[in-house]
């Protein structure tokens, strides 16, 4: 009995393993950040693409072109689908903390222009759609219900679609410096989530509540 062999500490080896692993991790991390930036750039490019289509409508509106109402009937539905797809991917990236302010502001600018033009289409062409503005924030602890609100709005939009009611949801990060923050102040948003429908403010709403509100 008793310790028959000499015990050692391989301190240098353990430290070397730690450092080498850390270097590999840093390399992977840097590559990951580069990849995330590439995805953000990809979404910015896609947003700018559909923004180009929106310019056509905007010019028609500015020039008081008689073909504006005809153009809305085929341009707006296409833009709606593409914009919704970009918006969903953006929301997914946001929840993972992978978006950058440039992407969000590019998208918000597009959304805002889209909102104004569609509003004109509703007023002047009786374009059959409803509009709802959704203010959220991803700052930790400031809006635990925002995660669910996004899902509820998606559910509501789809259920309304089945009832042949079109609902356009415009989402803005109310605490992001730039357009999001400006619009939140303009609409007197003091908490999150806030929904604005027909100039009235509402807090968190389930899909069923949103549907009831839109259907009147």
């Amino acid at each position: 009995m008793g310790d028959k062999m000499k015990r050692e500490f391989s301190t240098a080896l353990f430290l070397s393993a730690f450092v080498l692993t850390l270097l590999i991790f840093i390399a992977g991390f840097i590559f990951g950040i580069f990849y995330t930036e590439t995805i953000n750039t990809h979404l910015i490019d896609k947003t700018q693409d559909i923004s180009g289509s929106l310019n056509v409508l905007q010019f028609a509106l500015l020039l008081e072109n008689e073909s504006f109402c005809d153009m809305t009937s085929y341009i707006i539905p296409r833009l709606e689908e593409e914009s919704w797809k970009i918006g969903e991917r953006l929301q997914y990236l946001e929840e993972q903390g992978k978006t950058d302010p440039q992407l969000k502001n590019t998208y918000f600018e597009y959304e805002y222009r889209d909102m104004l033009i569609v509003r004109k289409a509703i007023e002047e062409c009786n374009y059959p759609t409803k509009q709802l503005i959704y203010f959220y924030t991803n700052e930790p602890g400031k809006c635990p219900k925002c995660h669910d609100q996004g899902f509820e709005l998606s559910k509501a939009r789809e259920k309304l679609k089945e009832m042949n009611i079109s609902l356009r949801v415009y989402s803005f990060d109310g605490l992001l410096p730039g357009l999001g923050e400006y619009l939140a102040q303009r609409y007197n948003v003091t908490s999150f989530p806030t929904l604005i429908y027909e100039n009235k403010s509402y807090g968190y709403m389930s899909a069923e509540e949103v549907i009831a509100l839109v259907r009147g």
Partner: protein
Amino acid sequence: MRLKGKTLAKIFLALVLLFIAAAVLSGYGALIAYILTFLAFFSISVVAMIFVLKYIQDPERVERDSKEDYFPTVSVVVPAYNEGENIRATIESILNSDYPKDKLEVIVVDDGSKDNTYEIASQYPIRVLRKPNGGAASAKNYGILHAKGDIIVTLDSDTIIDSKAIKRLASYFKDPKVGGVSGAVRVKDPKNMLEKWQAIEYDIILVYRRVLEAFESVYVTPGGLSAFRKKALMEVGLFDTRSLTEDQEIAMNLQKHGWKIRSSLDAFSYTQVPPTLSQLIKQRTRWVRGGIWNRVKHLDLLNWKWGDFMVFSYWLDFIFFFQILPLSISFILFLVENNFWFFRLGTDAVVFGFGPITFIGIFFWMAMLPWFVYYVNLMREKAHNVKISLKEIVDVLGFLFIFSVGWVIVWPFVFYKELLSKEEVWETR
């Protein structure tokens, strides 16, 4: 010492569930999942890197062959329970050994079998002992107490031993400080993909164990094939019958009493492995439970005087469990937070979900892949004198990215099963 394992498991699982619920409700679930994943993966990676560096430090020591120059008296003890189907092949493989027959004794201990294990074993010119059922450890102890050899070789009753294995194991005992030697247990005739992945795992573990020997930190002498100095076994009190993994417990006990444990890369035995996922889970659950129990029993090994054994080896199974656990928790959190997106975004959810952690994982595993291929190739060359094939390299890839990662998904179910399982007494695989 007897642990109330089931109560502890219930408390532990309740804490884990509470943690997950709190994380999700707080809104910080994604962030917590991210941090847990990073920490767990980093620690797993450091461990893998330690093995690589130690290997590089002294490759000759890791790769050297066993000698065949020492011939003490050997008793081969085979505990058997309801192994009528397998015992014949096991006995015949031992009798085919090239060890000097006048120094070799074979003892089969029938641990209260309900089939014809005893009758089959009795047909051979060996000693067959019979006792009431008491478990693998008790059967081994019974055989050891009746053994005449200075060296005890233990072998599972569903395992085939190579003809040179006993000679190679015995040679390590030329060093009077050696108390135990672990054999090179490999998988017998892997048929399906799960068995092939386990075969790769076993080969990698053999090399790992040899590296651990360089740290003087071998912490398991597998039941599939190991050898012990009888004097050392008697000194430490034989196998602990309370442990679910007595092959690990005896190694830790021997280490604690100052005996050296060596690991052979070429004293081969071939064992059966669980062919289905449910059987594999059952086996691994027993291993984890046994591992935790053994470490709690030998808590006094947490002392700086044990050097590398305390700092590194003692924690290995333990820390592996606690590394996988955060990954499982973060996986659950990830599913809870993102299940909606998988339905809506499809493949984009995966492509857009890639980020720094994903690429860290890919980078690190790609760095480890050549090493794992090297380890498997080394064992192929030692056992069969053939190099690893391209198809087998693909299997190693599958082992890395599916089998190893798969445990992250499986463990939550293991936790659930752990709550419902009863104490196990006998397991052969």
